[in-house]
């Protein structure tokens, strides 16, 4: 492992993040506040407790996951697409490093940003509702794994994209619906039987369910299934990236 190279990529990527810190920080806080106002105060008052959990508290894990997943994908995809777009990728590809080091650098940075935003949202939500996290270690574990796996997914997206449109279209058309329909704002058990089954094909369901379990000891699917799902998903993304570098697809003609 070439740690200096990883560090160089990581630091360089994080500098970009800190350069736009205000923007990175303010936008998730504002959108979270809006969700709380709309779903919590305005609508939430009319919704009964879900599975015995106050509705505002119920949506906190979902909201964190929603932001973390979208931020991880967009950060990671932009992080690798931008150098590709402006041509600076040549330097990374000519450096004495292997695919794993490139990925750890870029994905590590993107995941760190997403984690930071996730924690900011968690802190923000404490202003709106009292939360007790029953399994804090599992919660952090899930959060970190989600940041990593979705950053890996974003990395793949960034390598694949040939223009900015594609870069934005995939999160918009695929990731946002998966996340919204993955039980961010509701429990899967609230759905009709048919849609419950359909939902089980949505990988995001497992992540949100597991994450919510860490908070409230309540989940749609078993925590073991959730853990397996996220490990499987992470492994799959790493495998795809390995193939990308092995074949040089979209990177090395």
């Amino acid at each position, binding site marked *: 492992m070439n740690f200096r190279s990883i560090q160089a990529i990581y630091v360089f990527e994080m500098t970009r993040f800190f350069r736009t810190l205000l923007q990175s920080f303010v936008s998730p806080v504002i959108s979270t506040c809006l969700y709380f106002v709309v779903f919590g105060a305005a609508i939430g008052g009319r919704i009964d407790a879900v599975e015995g959990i106050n509705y505002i508290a119920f949506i906190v894990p979902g909201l964190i996951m929603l932001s973390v997943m979208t931020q991880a994908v967009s950060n990671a995809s932009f992080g690798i697409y931008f150098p590709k777009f402006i041509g600076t990728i*040549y330097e990374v590809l000519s450096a004495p490093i292997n695919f794993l080091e490139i990925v750890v650098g870029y994905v590590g940075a993107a995941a760190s940003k997403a984690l930071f935003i996730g924690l900011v949202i968690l802190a923000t939500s404490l202003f709106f509702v009292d939360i007790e996290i029953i399994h804090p270690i599992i919660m952090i574990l899930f959060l970190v794994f989600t940041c990593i796996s979705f950053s890996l997914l974003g990395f793949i997206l960034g390598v694949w994209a040939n223009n900015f449109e594609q870069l934005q279209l995939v999160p918009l058309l695929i990731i946002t619906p998966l996340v919204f329909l993955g039980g961010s704002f509701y429990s899967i058990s609230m759905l009709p039987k048919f849609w419950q089954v359909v939902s089980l094909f949505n990988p995001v369901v497992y992540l949100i369910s597991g994450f919510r379990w860490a908070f409230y000891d309540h989940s749609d699917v078993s925590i073991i299934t959730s853990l397996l799902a996220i490990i499987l998903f992470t492994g799959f993304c790493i495998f795809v990236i390995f193939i990308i570098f092995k074949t040089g697809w979209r990177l090395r003609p």
Partner: protein
Amino acid sequence: MTDMLSITGLSKRYSDGQVALDNVSLAVKEGEILALLGPNGAGKTTLISAVCGLVVPTEGQITVGGFDTKSNYRLARSLVGLVPQEISLEPFEKVINTVRFSRGLFGKDPNDKYLEIVLRQLSLWDKKDSKIMQLSGGMKRRVLIAKALAHEPRVLFLDEPSAGVDVELRREMWKLVSELKSQRVTIILTTHYIEEAEAIADRVGVISKGKLILLEEKKALIKRMGQKKLEISLKSPIAAIPAQLQHFQLFLSDDGTSINYLYDTKGSTNQITKLLNEISNADLQISDLQTSQSSLEEIFVSLI
């Protein structure tokens, strides 16, 4: 001297069937400066990209400093610095940060002392805290060179370093190249400015349609292929070359004031003494004599 870079049977066919390199072999010694000439699309950049790991060769073997670029890519690549043709830089980044990044990326320990030397050498030191986007085109190119030198490479590739660069910067670059040469850095540059190859290269290679069609010492090349021209200016113009001088194959200038004689300095066709004797016998008054040598450009054009 050992070969710093060795390329054997290198071919590159792109997936669309285009053949960019066709069985290219060449070796460059340590501290040598090789200029690769050739028209646009000849394969110069592909050759460089293959060595640097940006393009996967279809066939052939490349070693840098004795390390295979495939099986031993870490050691091979850490010896190589690349200055790309296009200006590719992160616009919002500071000069010093992007240079530090390059050094770290190639696995070198931080060394701001060394980076200062590089930046000063390239007259960038007072711009170290400027953002890239605030720099002029010439300075951006210098930043690219600084990035390539940041990890102390032993082989430096300059892909068209003079494209869009003013005369002053070009001279500075040539000076830098000769300084690097004195540190025994091997330099391979591509250019289509023949004067550049003539000014700094030890050897010249010509690539055309993916083939290395010529590889020779610059001086030998000029000597071998170059002809010299003797221009004899006359005091008073003449209408035609006098009959007794016809056998010399002379060319009269349009205004009749000078006679041109093409010769080869070492060839048997060299008859300068005889020519001058016969000119004075023919009662022609000489006002001036001038000789000139064919440039690489003329040789180059004759090859393609």
